[in-house]
């Protein structure tokens, strides 16, 4: 029942937001829904429900391991959203607020989906509902970003449907009865027909990999993250990509059970390292600090894919990294949004001296970048350390070397750009707009909360979460 409410509450509040008459009070519906959702998610985390066999959705260990993070991310972003939409009161927010809530509802559905078809329907719905969020600013660049997002994302999601069909046919050909829940597909094991299974894995990895933003299917990401409002970027980087990662993990579980474990691990490792390499190269060159966050997201999706390729310990570390990356990215996207608004531009040739213009946001941004590039004692350091330990355990020395090299270059690239925009003398454009955009607590406290959460995950990872990740990793990678 509670797991159903996780989906129903955001959708009901979304309906309410659509009908809500007042522009000024409508944004408050975001924290209301976010708060209720977070309470429910926490409750389910502490007291997981009994799974109903054969159900199409449910709060299984994998959902338990990641859904509370998405819920927490949404809650903090929604508080930022109230202040943000007050600043941006010249734009109508009816569609924006509604679409955000619908997105939360479908993310909760997708993370809990236990059926291949239902998972795809929810993923498709999340893709569509993101489009109005991307062109909230209504500029030509925002239109361009949404067009590219829809074309690339739409093709990706179409491929994942074809992949789902192929997996369904693999089951049917292997004597299945058309039951596409993951438990029954896993139970079918080696009887899934092998050529169809391979086709399905290729298509599903390409499809959900596009959604996740693995290179070379990442091309929508810089445009979308560069043009979307900061809080939308945070939700895409921590919510939608997490959903796609969970989808890949669930499919991987089926393919592994059918004896394709070596294949899934090799492909995930290759895609992961390639994404990290591509991201590191672009990070060294990009002049735009919001697009920088997008490439950093490509890098971290690569890290997740590498983690998922390294057996039980790797999957555990990847789930840990889902949390640390999602929450740290939240701090970065929100503070980057503040800097962008005050500076009136987002490239290094137009933005400088933001430490004077927006002192609090600039400081959060710098600390956030250090946290994201694995500076101890923030959470990302520990989750990446666990992944490196997993590469040692599985004796993948080449992977470990490439992993560390990419991390180093990504750090150089990001540090270069961050200090270029933070230091120096403020530019004329920023001086003109700087005065009316004060840094109110409403836009400063949420990113600070994210930083605090990142620190907390690093210093004192709660044993509750450790247990949740262990339970999920044990199911995804059963040790014989």
């Amino acid at each position: 029942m509670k797991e159903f409410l996780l989906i129903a509450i955001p959708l009901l509040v979304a309906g309410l937001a659509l009908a809500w008459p007042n522009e000024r009070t409508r944004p408050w519906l975001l924290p209301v829904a976010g708060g209720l959702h977070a309470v429910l998610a926490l409750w389910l985390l502490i007291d997981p429900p009994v799974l109903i066999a054969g159900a199409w959705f449910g709060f299984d260990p994998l959902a338990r391991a990641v859904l509370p993070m998405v819920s927490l991310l949404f809650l903090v972003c929604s508080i930022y959203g109230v202040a943000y939409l007050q600043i941006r009161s010249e734009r109508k927010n009816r569609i924006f607020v509604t679409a955000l809530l619908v997105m939360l509802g479908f993310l909760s559905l997708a993370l809990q989906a236990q059926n291949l078809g239902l998972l795809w329907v929810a993923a498709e719905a999340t893709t569509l509902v993101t489009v109005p969020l991307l062109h909230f600013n209504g500029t030509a660049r925002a239109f361009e970003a949404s067009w590219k997002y829809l074309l690339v994302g739409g093709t990706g999601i179409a491929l994942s449907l074809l992949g789902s069909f192929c997996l369904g046919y693999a089951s049917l050909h292997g004597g299945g009865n058309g039951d596409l829940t993951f438990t029954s597909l896993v139970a079918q094991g080696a009887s899934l027909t092998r050529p169809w299974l391979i086709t399905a894995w290729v298509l599903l990895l390409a499809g959900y990999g596009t959604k996740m933003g693995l290179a070379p299917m990442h091309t929508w990401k810089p445009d979308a993250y560069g043009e979307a409002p900061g809080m939308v970027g945070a939700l895409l980087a921590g919510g939608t990509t997490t959903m796609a990662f969970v989808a890949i993990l669930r499919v991987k579980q089926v393919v592994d059970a059918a004896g394709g474990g070596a294949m899934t691990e090799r492909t995930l490792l290759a895609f992961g390292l390639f994404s990290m390499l591509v991201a590191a190269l672009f990070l060294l060159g990009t002049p735009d600090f919001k697009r920088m966050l997008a490439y950093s997201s490509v890098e971290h999706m690569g890290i997740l894919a590498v983690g998922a390729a390294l057996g039980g310990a790797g999957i555990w570390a990847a789930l840990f990294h889902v949390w640390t990356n999602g929450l740290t990215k939240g701090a970065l996207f929100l503070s980057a949004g503040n800097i962008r608004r005050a500076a009136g531009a987002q490239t290094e040739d137009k933005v400088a001296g933001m430490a004077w213009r927006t002192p609090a946001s600039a400081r959060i941004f710098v600390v956030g970048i250090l946290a994201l590039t694995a500076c101890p004692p923030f959470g990302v350091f520990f989750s990446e350390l666990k992944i490196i330990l997993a590469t040692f355990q599985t004796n993948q020395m080449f992977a470990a070397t490439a992993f560390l090299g990419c991390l180093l270059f990504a750090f150089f690239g990001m540090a270069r750009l961050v200090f270029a925009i933070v230091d120096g003398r403020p530019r004329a454009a920023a001086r003109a707009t700087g005065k009316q955009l004060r840094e109110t607590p409403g836009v400063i406290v949420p990113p600070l909360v994210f930083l605090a959460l990142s620190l907390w995950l690093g210093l004192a990872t709660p044993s509750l979460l450790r247990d949740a990740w262990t339970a999920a990793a044990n199911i995804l990678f059963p040790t014989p």
Partner: protein
Amino acid sequence: MSGTMNLLIGLAMGLSLLALASSRLPSVIRAAAFQGMVLGTLPLLLEEKIHWLVAIVAVGTIAVKGFIIPNLLRRALRAANIDREVEPLLGFVPSLLLGAAATIGAAALASELPLLPEHAKSLLVPGAFATVVCGFILLIARTKAISQVCGYLILENGIYLFGLLLINTTPLLVEAGILLDLTVAVFVIGIIVDRIQREFDTLDTRKLTSLRE
């Protein structure tokens, strides 16, 4: 029965090649719409006894793929006041040859994949893969937004064709969800085309280049 079906699937494959070869946008839209209608009739031919759910899927597919979406596309076309794809990224003859090669490749791939006895004689699998690849070529080889949407439509048609293999075994929700979501996807693409057209008069996606490194 399977003879008629294979004939229709062959027709659909021919229509995707036709879409690749034509330079006028109305004929690309017409090819995609006609292909949608042809595919819509297929579920009725699959079974001896027609279940009412299958009939609904068929009627819905014909209405949406054959009429509603093409009409939206024609409206966008009129609003944009263009009817020709000039300067494609890949010429019409090369894309046709590529499409033909892809069709042969799809047939070769399909012959490698094991099929259930009841599907062994049908062209469903090669037809589906060929249509998907042709749609993808149209999607990436054209510059006008409407041609790209037609490419996406043909790609979707291919996936729908593949879905027919499972129409009797996948539960209701998957069917409904697939129909609903795929159509909404194109609807939204249509709306976006509309908006883009207000921003960029020519609907030339090559002008969408301010975002890059």
